[in-house]
Every structure is written in C-alpha cells, then in structure tokens.
C-alpha cells in the first residue's frame, strides 16, 4: 500500500474525487435542485403571491396571462391562476408524498413476513398479490375512492390498499436472498426473537431496493392523484389541485388554451424532477 502511494502520489486524490462523483451524479443533483425549487415555491406560496386561491371575482374572470395583478391570468371564476397553482402544489405534493409512504411501509412489512416465513404464509400472500395486480391500478383506486367517499383519507387508503403489492414483491425477493446470509443465520442461531431479527437485522438490509422504487413510484402516485382530480374524484373542491384545474380548463380549450396548459406543465416539470431523482438514485445504488 505504501508502495502504491509512493509510485503514484496523485492516486488517493483522484480516487476521492471519483467517490464524490459517485455520491452526486448529474441527474440526482439536477432533480434535487428542481424538486427543491418546486417544494420551496409551494411552501412559500403566501410570500410569492398576495392573491387568495379561493377568492372569486367574476368581474375579472378569464384574464389572459400577464394581466395586471394576475401574472398567469384568472380562471372562469376570476380566481388567480398563479395562486391556485402554488397552493395546488402544496396539496398535490403533500398527498403524493404521503400516499407513497404508507404502501412502502405496509408492503415492506408484508414482504418481510412472506419471504422470512415462506411456506403457506408466503403462498397466501402471493395469491393476494396476484389478485390485486389483476386490477388496473387506476381502476381499483377509483373504485375504492368511490366506495369510501371523496376526501384525502380515502385517497391515501385506496392508494395504500392497491400500491403495497409492488413493495411486497421487491422486499420478499430481497429477503429470500438475505435470509441465507451469515448474519441472518447468526441472528437466528443466537435465539433472538423473530420480530427483532426481522426489524433490526433484516429490514435495514433489504429495504434499499424498495426505497429506490418508491422514488419512481412518487411520479406514478402524483399522476394518479391529478388524474383523480381531473375525473372529479380527487381532493374535494374548492381546494386547488392541478388535475381539477386542467379539467376546468378543458371546456374553454379553444380560446383559453393556457388554462389547461399551465397546470399540465407544472405536473410535467414536477414529474421530471422526481424522475431525475429516481434515475440518480438507481445509478447510485448500482455503483
């Protein structure tokens, strides 16, 4: 080792730089900056606009973007589009992120149990997974939201009940490999209680893939939420939501094309930021 340093003194430095590049790759940095900006805009909504997203002003409806006092114009009820966009970001981002966390937790735990115990427990869980994935994601979510009634609680619950299966499959696969590893066998041999082996020893080792997947899952969940809004089954009005804004704009698409276009662009940019983060994390995890 000392020979290596004397022959090539520059080596440790370049190795360091390579490691740092491994930690922060370009998509990850770009995605984090973009997403950070979006979150900052959502959090600072009251500072960025003085308008109330719910205040109607029929005398000033359908103002085009650039109108005085309304940077992005107003909608059919005279509500400020910029304010609705910013406050809508708060709603959609919060629901989107929260709606990914509970399937992640539920699916990981069930996958952990299926993979560890195997046998009939695994067979039963596997069957349930088969049944849930037989439904198109959106169809079952919509049917569940309908059955449970509108509101954010229904949306969280529906997405959790349908979304856990992906995490269950990922974690189960990881557990099947991990439980044959020495540390897992050692933990079992030392007579620790099962819950302790699962949660303290196994979980930290198998959860990475599930977390990586959850990053790309946020994009799909966000799309599902705005789609619910578009179909009139999302966050109940008058709470601003990007999907609802697009749906309201569709009726006036010929003359007021920007009404649907602007919230759509907001979704695309948010989706891009999240996709970049997901790509960056996958790249990092593969190193």
């Amino acid at each position: 080792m000392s020979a290596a340093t004397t022959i090539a003194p520059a080596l440790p430095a370049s190795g360091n730089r390579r490691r740092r590049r491994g930690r922060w790759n370009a998509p990850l940095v770009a995605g984090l900056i973009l997403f950070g900006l979006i979150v900052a805009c959502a959090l600072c909504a009251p500072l960025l606009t003085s308008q109330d997203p719910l205040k109607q002003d029929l005398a000033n409806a359908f103002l085009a973007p650039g109108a005085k006092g309304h940077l992005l114009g107003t909608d059919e009820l005279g509500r400020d589009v910029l304010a609705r966009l910013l406050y809508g970001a708060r709603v959609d981002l919060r629901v989107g992120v929260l709606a990914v966390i509970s399937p992640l937790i539920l699916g990981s735990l069930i996958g952990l149990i299926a993979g560890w115990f195997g046998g009939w427990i695994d067979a039963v869980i596997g069957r349930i997974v088969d049944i849930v994935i037989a439904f198109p994601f959106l169809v079952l979510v919509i049917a569940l939201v309908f059955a449970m009634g509108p509101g954010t609680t229904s949306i969280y619950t529906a997405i959790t009940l349908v979304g856990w299966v992906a995490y269950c499959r990922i974690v189960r696969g990881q557990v099947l490999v991990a439980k044959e590893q020495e540390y897992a066998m050692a933990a079992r041999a030392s007579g620790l209680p099962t819950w302790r082996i699962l949660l303290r020893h196994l979980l930290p080792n198998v959860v990475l893939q599930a977390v990586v997947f959850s990053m790309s899952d946020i994009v799909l969940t966000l799309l599902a939420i705005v789609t619910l809004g578009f179909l009139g089954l999302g966050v109940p009005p008058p709470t601003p939501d990007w999907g609802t804004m697009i749906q309201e704009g569709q009726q006036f698409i010929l003359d007021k094309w920007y009404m649907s276009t602007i919230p759509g662009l907001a979704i695309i940019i948010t989706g891009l930021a999240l996709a970049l983060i997901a790509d960056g994390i996958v790249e990092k995890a593969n190193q």
Partner: protein
Amino acid sequence: MRYLVYILKRVVSLIPVLIGISFIVFFLIRLIPGDPAATLLGVHATPQAVKELREQMGLEDSLPSQYLTFLGHLLQGNLGYSYVYSSSVVDLITVSLPVTIWLLISGTVFTLLIAVPLAVLAAARRNGVVDNIIRAVPVVGLGMPAFWLGIMLILVFGLKLGWFPVAGYGTGVVDHLRGIVLPGITIALTLSPILIRSLRASMVDVLGSDYIVTAHSKGISTARVVLGHALRNAAVSSVTVLGVNIAYLTGSTLVVERVFSLPGIGQQMINSILGRDFPTVQGITLVFAIMVVVVNLLTDVTHAALDPRVKLA
C-alpha cells in the same frame, strides 16, 4: 400437444385469481360507510324504501351467503341491474366494451409503430447522438398525465388543424376509425417510453452476442443483421414487457375515453360513479380485471410459442 397442456394448466391456475377478483369486487360495496342501501337512496329515502332495497340487495342475509349469491349470479352472467340506466349491467357493458377493445388495439398498434423503430435506431447507434436523444426524451414524458396530453392533441390536431374529430365515436366504420386515432396516439405516447427502454436494452444485449458477430463476418448487410437477426430475438423478451404494460394501459383507457368522450367502459364507469350507480361500477371493475387477466394469459401463451426456452411444465 405439450403446448396445449401448458395452455390448459395456465388457464386452470387462473381460477383462484378469478375467485379472488370476485371477492374484492363483492367487498367494494361493503366499503360504503354506513348502510349501503340508505347511502344509495340518498337522504330523502323513506325507511320503507331502504328496507325494501336492503332485502333486494340481499343485505339482510349473512355475509358468506351474500357472497355465494353474488358468485352464483356472476356465473350465470348476471352482474345486477342499473337503476340509473334502467338496464341490466351486462347490457350496458356489451354496448361499451367493443369501443374500449378497439381503443386498446389502436393504442397497441401506435405504440409498436412509435417504439420499435426508435428502439432499433437507438440500439443500432448505441451511445450516439440519436441514442442519447431517444433515451432522454422519455424521462421528460414520464411525468406527463395522459389526460393532459390528450387535451393538447385535441387542441392541435382536432381544433386548430381539424384533421381528427374533437370528441366522440361517430357512426359507421370510417368515423370509428377516425375517432380512435388521437386517443390511440395519446395512449401510445404515454406507453412507448417504457417499451423503448426495454426493447433498446434487449437489442443492445442481442447485438453484442456471438451469432450477430458471425452474421456480420459472413458479410450480411447491417440492416439485415439488425432487422432480420437481432430484432426477432429482442422482440421475444419485449412481448412480456408489452403484456405487463397493456395491463397498465387498460387502466389508462379510462382517462383517455373521458378526455375524448369515447363511449367505452371507462367512460361508463366514470359516469356511473358520478351517478352513484353502484352495480355498474362493480360490474365494470370486474370486467377491467378480467381483461387484464386475459391479456396476461395471451402474453404468456405468445411468449411460450415464440421462445422455445420457456419451460412448458
């Protein structure tokens, strides 16, 4: 013969899944908070009417016997009666299902037309400028909501250019075909990024294998090696990817039908939800799940037919 046995086994293995699907659809109605009959009839219902509907819906029976009744009706092809449309749910679905199936076919065809050439081009010019563009664009499109894309296509090709109808399905074959072009393209644009990725990856794999090198060294033209030798093998693994995504696509028909006002089962489902027409929502949810199961079956069977390495056990 072994192939037929394989198909038969796959079909039999679906039975538990189908039973599970019927179970979930059955339980949807139990999720309604409070008394389903009272909720369905609204606040102005008389207690007498609620009681009658409860009996009609079989809510007075025990849960297991309710499920068995439901399953029995299902096996007879009876999905219940829609009070909103005064028609049996099966009739409603029979009318709208063909539209959805045509939309699925149109979406799949356009997806193949977009994804296959781009994936082949990207793989053949690996790491070149074209490849990088083809790989970068889908990342942008990943977060694009299908309904928004549909509205934009309506705006440009329907309203501004007038090439395609803005909404609806018209009457007659020509109108039908014109009506499903833009919806099909909408689906294709949201689906092709995933297919391009997977097809490109398997093309790159195949192009690096020995038999491709041999084909090149025999002096066969690059175009023939790529299209004749490589694509055929790369396509086999992409059949599965396409199958998985057609299941996903089946769900997005719901939204696309809504945007383009196509009278398919997705549109019917949304209308039934807005009209609180529960039996129809239940029936369509079931049909969607069965469609996915059938597509998955067809995918597996096709894959087994194309790839001799698939174990037919």
